[in-house]
């Protein structure tokens, strides 16, 4: 099969693998968390201070217990998702402190925005997961902010969860709050009800928060997304091969730790590495370099038998304009085509992760929907080959009057919710409104159509009480 996207043959794959093992073995990884270092020591890893060194055999042995696919349970069992193998999920944008509105004005995000984003996710035709802290609101008390965002996800949606930014405290509150929702700690931890993004600090370092959170969540049986964001030229070598190796080494080191803590705990590897724009030293997430790194990462993840995170509705633009569309489509489409399994940040992001746009949220959703549709296999059967119809209509006729056309006209093709397909005259007479305007209206319609999913009022009360207790602690 012809694949032009950085297709790695055996020799190149093995070269990358051995480079990765050399980094892990020779340079080592710094774990600034004593408990992590103790775990490595107890398992016979070479340790010097907080530096941990890995033998290839130790890595490969640990990876043996990591599943290649797994399920994350949702409050609504029909919405539980499978990640890995042939299965992939889209999870929304995450962590953007600012909202850019339809006029292009920027403001700090609020809890009302966070709630509205939950409502968009719950009504989404294409998203598979909810994520807490899609926007970290400025109007919340830092002490309870993360718990409040989690509570919003649990109560406003019934979807599987991408949880808080990873720190030990957040990890503990995720498990405690999930235990309230699922009825008991046992019920919440028997198999994952959430996945969290653990970020190594490139190059080659795990902060106490990242390593501590990882340990806590691995113990609590939650899925872990252990992926790096190396910025080539800044926190990684400017050459992409080196940056790919760094990313992989960091990701594998964390996955090994997770497997030592709880063999079999689901882990997703990969990253969201990119080039730095060295005119400004900023992360350039709309770049083709991200796509190249993605293509390498998805293939190396397959080599290690792990599900892979990459891609997203990623752009460096500050408005849902053509640039945003170009970059986001490039990222979403090629990542899904290449076999990424978990797409964090799939919609809404602007400004290299710093801004969230409601309009772009629904536009990216539509890109996701289009790509999902484009890659879903064409059904080849007697009915769909339609040879009878072809023969009946013959040379030069039309299929418009075929009964099958009427029967399938609503379902056979992807129906865009926001993109426009009408005539020039229609567009012109509508005030030449661009797709952002249509998106703005669609957001309003969606929020109006939102229905809160059922939840036992007792659970909701307990979640509230949990937050109050946190505030008073």
């Amino acid at each position: 099969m012809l694949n032009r996207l950085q297709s790695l043959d055996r020799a190149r794959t093995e070269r990358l693998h051995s480079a990765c093992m050399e980094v892990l073995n020779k340079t080592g990884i710094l774990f600034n968390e004593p408990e992590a270092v103790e775990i490595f020591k107890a398992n016979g890893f070479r340790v010097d201070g907080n530096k941990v060194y890995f033998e290839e055999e130790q890595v490969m042995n640990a990876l043996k217990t990591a599943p290649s696919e797994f399920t994350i349970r949702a409050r609504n069992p029909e919405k539980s998702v499978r990640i890995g193998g042939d299965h992939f999920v889209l999870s929304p944008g995450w962590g953007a402190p600012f909202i850019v509105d339809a006029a292009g004005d920027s403001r700090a995000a609020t809890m009302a925005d966070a709630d509205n984003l939950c409502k968009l996710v719950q009504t989404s035709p294409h998203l598979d997961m909810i994520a807490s802290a899609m926007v970290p609101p400025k109007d919340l008390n830092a002490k309870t902010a993360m718990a409040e965002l989690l509570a919003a996800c649990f109560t406003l949606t019934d979807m599987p969860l991408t949880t808080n930014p990873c720190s030990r405290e957040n990890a503990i509150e995720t498990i405690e709050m999930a235990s309230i929702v699922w009825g008991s700690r046992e019920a919440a931890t028997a198999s994952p009800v959430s996945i969290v993004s653990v970020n190594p600090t490139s190059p080659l370092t795990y902060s106490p928060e990242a390593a501590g959170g990882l340990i806590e969540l691995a113990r609590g049986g939650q899925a872990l997304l252990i992926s790096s964001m190396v910025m080539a030229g800044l926190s990684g070598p400017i050459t992409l091969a080196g940056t790919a190796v760094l990313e992989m080494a960091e990701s594998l080191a964390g996955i090994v730790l997770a497997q030592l803590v709880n063999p079999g705990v689901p882990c997703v590897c990969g990253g969201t590495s990119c080039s730095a724009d060295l005119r400004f030293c900023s992360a350039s997430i709309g770049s083709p370099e991200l796509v190249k790194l993605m293509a390498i990462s998805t293939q190396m993840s397959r080599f290690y038998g792990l599900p892979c995170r990459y891609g997203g509705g990623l752009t460096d633009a500050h408005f849902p304009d053509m640039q945003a569309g170009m970059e986001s489509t490039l990222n979403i489409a090629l990542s899904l085509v290449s076999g990424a399994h978990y797409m964090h940040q799939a919609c809404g992001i602007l400004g290299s992760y710093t801004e969230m746009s409601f309009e772009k949220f629904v536009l990216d959703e539509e890109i996701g929907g289009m790509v999902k549709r484009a890659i879903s296999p064409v059904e080849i059967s007697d009915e769909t080959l339609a040879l009878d119809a072809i023969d009946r209509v013959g040379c030069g006729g039309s299929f418009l009057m075929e009964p099958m056309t009427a029967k399938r006209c609503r379902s056979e093709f992807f129906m865009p919710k926001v993109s426009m397909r009408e005539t020039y005259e229609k567009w012109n007479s509508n005030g030449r409104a661009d797709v952002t305007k249509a998106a703005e209206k669609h957001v309003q319609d969606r929020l109006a159509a939102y229905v809160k999913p059922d939840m036992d009022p007792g659970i909701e009360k307990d979640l509230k009480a949990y937050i109050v207790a946190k505030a008073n602690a």
Partner: protein
Amino acid sequence: MSDYKELLEVLLTGDGEKLETLVKEALENGVAANEILNQGLIASMDVVGARMESGEMFIPEVLMSAQAMGGAVEILKPLLSEEDSAVAGKVVLGTVKGDLHDIGKNLVAMMLESAGFEVIEMGVDVTPEKFVEAIKDNDADILALSALLTTTMPMMAQTVKTIEESGIRDTVKILVGGAPVNQTFADEIGADGYAPDAGSASKLAKTLLKKSAYGSIQTN
């Protein structure tokens, strides 16, 4: 010597060795050290600064130039008067408590240093008390705070408050920055300035101290 064209060209390429040779030659030809510094190096570095701002020069190239300049200044230092070699100002710089992002902060440090400031690097996850201590110990002119998380922005406010309470607020200008920070927030917490990137951070530091940073250099 009045023509520093070659010196400018060499500085732009970031070739430290060649720059040092040129500086030594100029000294041998009897040009005064402070003239080489002001009309040669500093004027050329201003061109570098302008080219960075216009996007003609990339930041790694600017840093190479700054490094080359630093080497050349070392040669001149023993020949400069006390006044000529005063630092542009002392900056205590760090990422606030709870926050571990440091790439942007480190870049701010590099830019401040290449603009002639002495930077006291506090690292990440720094408590307000530690900042106060560092300002006092170093007699700093500027405190520069970085935060990239919404949840650590209140720690910036807390740091400003702690500085007020310790009675040293008047002695120090406070600069803030990082992705979620903006001018409105800087005003809210009573900081003296906000800059969106490292280049404007060092410019702002200079205007705040109302000194030409290139008009003076580091002593230690």
